[in-house]
């Protein structure tokens, strides 16, 4: 039992990173209907930007500044690159985000090199791990989960209680009708990308603090984050966090109780199983095909 509890907690700490990346994926899907494969690489790139900030300032101001930079980059990407394919088939959008993935990966490799770099942890997340009974968890992972929740709450308030948020939701659900009632649809889509990139930037910095900073740090994580987002339901922020954590726990438990040789396989088998029972994830709404 004690071992089980420890493995669950370990799973939660692995999953905390998936959760926060999944949140960024969901944010873009929810506001634009696109699955953004470049999410991880954009986050990685902004994390390298934050690394240059960190040479001059503390963690928190750097985080704030990076979020702003990412917000700007995300918005620009929508305006410059995604806008012309708004009405294109979904696969074209997928290819474009993969093109962005290549661009950001290459830019980071060119600018910052392929060597992994140690990344500072914020003060309050450093220090001895927390102990609850016999179970230990690092402060950083608790912090990452807390940040994910905080972001989720802010997003919840934004989407449900502000005019802007409601307009964004309306845009995603029915762009034509939204345009008719006077919503600037293009601006809303750009805002969706900007917000998602900003959340991604936070995710990137916390990931780097936990696993060191490198150009390829997000690739494997992105796959699991996708799995988390899908399990939770692609249009549910709360579901994304839960999904990410569930994927982490599944991986840890499968590694411990089945075999570490099949931990990924077992985790994915369960994820696909969940999808077969609930084809749009645990909290996803049934998709309505846009005509």
């Amino acid at each position, binding site marked *: 039992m004690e*071992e089980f509890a*420890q*493995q669950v907690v*370990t*799973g939660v*700490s*692995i999953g905390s*990173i998936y959760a926060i990346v999944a949140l960024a994926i969901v944010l873009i899907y929810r506001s634009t209907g696109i699955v953004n494969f470049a999410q991880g690489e954009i986050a990685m790139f902004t994390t390298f930007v934050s690394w240059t900030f960190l040479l001059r300032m503390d963690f928190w101001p750097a985080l704030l500044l990076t979020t702003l930079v990412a917000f700007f980059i995300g918005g620009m990407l929508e305006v410059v690159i995604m806008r012309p394919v708004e009405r294109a088939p979904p696969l074209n959008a997928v290819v474009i985000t993969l093109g962005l993935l290549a661009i950001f990966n290459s830019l980071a*490799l060119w600018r910052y*090199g*392929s*060597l*992994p*770099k*140690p990344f500072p942890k914020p003060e309050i997340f450093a220090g*001895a*791990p927390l102990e609850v009974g016999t179970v*230990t968890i*690092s402060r950083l992972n608790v912090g990452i989960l807390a940040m994910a929740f905080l972001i989720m709450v802010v997003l919840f308030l934004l989407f449900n209680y502000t005019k802007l948020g409601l307009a964004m939701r309306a845009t995603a659900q029915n762009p034509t009708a939204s345009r008719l009632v006077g919503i600037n649809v293009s601006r809303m889509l750009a805002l969706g990308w900007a917000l998602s990139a900003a959340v991604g930037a936070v995710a990137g910095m916390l990931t780097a603090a*936990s*696993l*060191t900073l*490198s*150009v*390829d*740090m997000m*690739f*494997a994580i992105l796959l699991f984050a996708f799995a988390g987002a899908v399990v939770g339901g692609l249009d549910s922020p709360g579901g994304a966090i839960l999904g990410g954590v569930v994927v982490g726990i599944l*991986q*840890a438990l499968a*590694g*411990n109780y089945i075999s*570490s*040789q099949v*931990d*990924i396989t077992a985790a994915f088998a369960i994820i696909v199983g969940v999808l077969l029972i609930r084809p749009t994830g645990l909290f996803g709404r049934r998709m309505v095909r846009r005509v």
Partner: protein
Amino acid sequence: MRATRRKLLSLLLLLVAAITLVAVACGDDEEGEEPTATVEGEEPTATAEEAGDLSDIPEDTTGITDTEIVLGTHLPLSGIAAIYGNAIAPSLQAYFSYINDTEGGVNGRKITLIVEDDGYEPPQANQVVRKLVEQDGVFAIVSGLGTATHGAVFEYLVENKIPDLFVSTGATKFTEPVTRTAFGYNPNYIQEGTAIGTYIAENFPDAKVGMLIQNDDFGTDGEKGVRVGIEGSNVEIISVVTYEATQTDMTAQVQRLQNDGATLVVGYVLPRQAGSLVSVARATLSWDVPIMVTGVVADELTIALAGPDNAEGVITAAYIRPLATEGDAAIEKHKEIMAQYAPDVPPSNVSLYAQSLAELTVEVLKQAGPDLNRRSIIEAAESIRGFLCSVCIAPSNMSPTDHRPIEAFRLAKVEGGVWVPFGEVISYESTED
């Protein structure tokens, strides 16, 4: 009408397909005999019986002119193992350029190295190596990196009798059994594991070892080696946990080792996972367990990734003198060469490794003499005895039955944030001098 015609066409095609398939089927029954290599001119040299029979390796001079030797290599410059390729390729180039500039190359021929990116993907390696051989016309392949990627091209190189010098992996399958044209470089992981296992048996006689290994030959060879090393002692391996090369967060794995009651951890891991292993054990779990890692990660990078405080006391088995060795003239020289010819690449234990490999290559080319061809280079490589490269710990020896130059180690420990060698040189040399 049209539909019928299409059906007929389909049927016709199926027929053709069937005939082709039968033809292919028949083809396979007969094992095609070895193509008789047309050896240009001379008879096999007199040393043949001494060095084993090399007569079926042609005295081919592809890639060699009076002024140039063209070599080729395949390395990952992109993909998950890009860290290695991006450090090794420019370091090899740097040393060859240095030799070209200071000594005018080897026997008047300048060395040109063509580097191809295989992205650490076997099909890609297959494409680029065929390009190197068939289009660029390289004389030999040097320092092909990666067990899987080199595995994809190994057969091709052997069949075409292309010298395959100093494969950058410790996997045993390229050198055991010995193939005349192929030579390894890294000491094999079984020997390295044995050295680590022996050290554990001598210094931690009651240890319960937990192993964290990569889920491939690198990991399992390491595990085999440690088992050989601890044989006959009280030490036992109580837990072996694996990870995939794409996983970088080792929290769950290290947790598992702790739960299983390990009192000493051995890691057959890559730098990222080594960093995670050490920092999770020390910082996340506050677990003060002795940690030993493979020589593959005996690099500054690992210390930086783990955090210098966490890494203190980690032990490895090295075969190249660490970059941090104080007052070492050869290492200072290496730093100079790198600063001049590869200023973008910071010197590291990996760049030292690359230089040691380049030094051996140059030595073999020198030994082969002015009459350089694909047979004489193999002959020269097999006759290397006691060659001590400027940054190595022990001399390199090869023979017709031993295609692994390095078979000796010295343990090293992280002290004050750098690797410091200690103890005697442990040798498993199989070539009698």
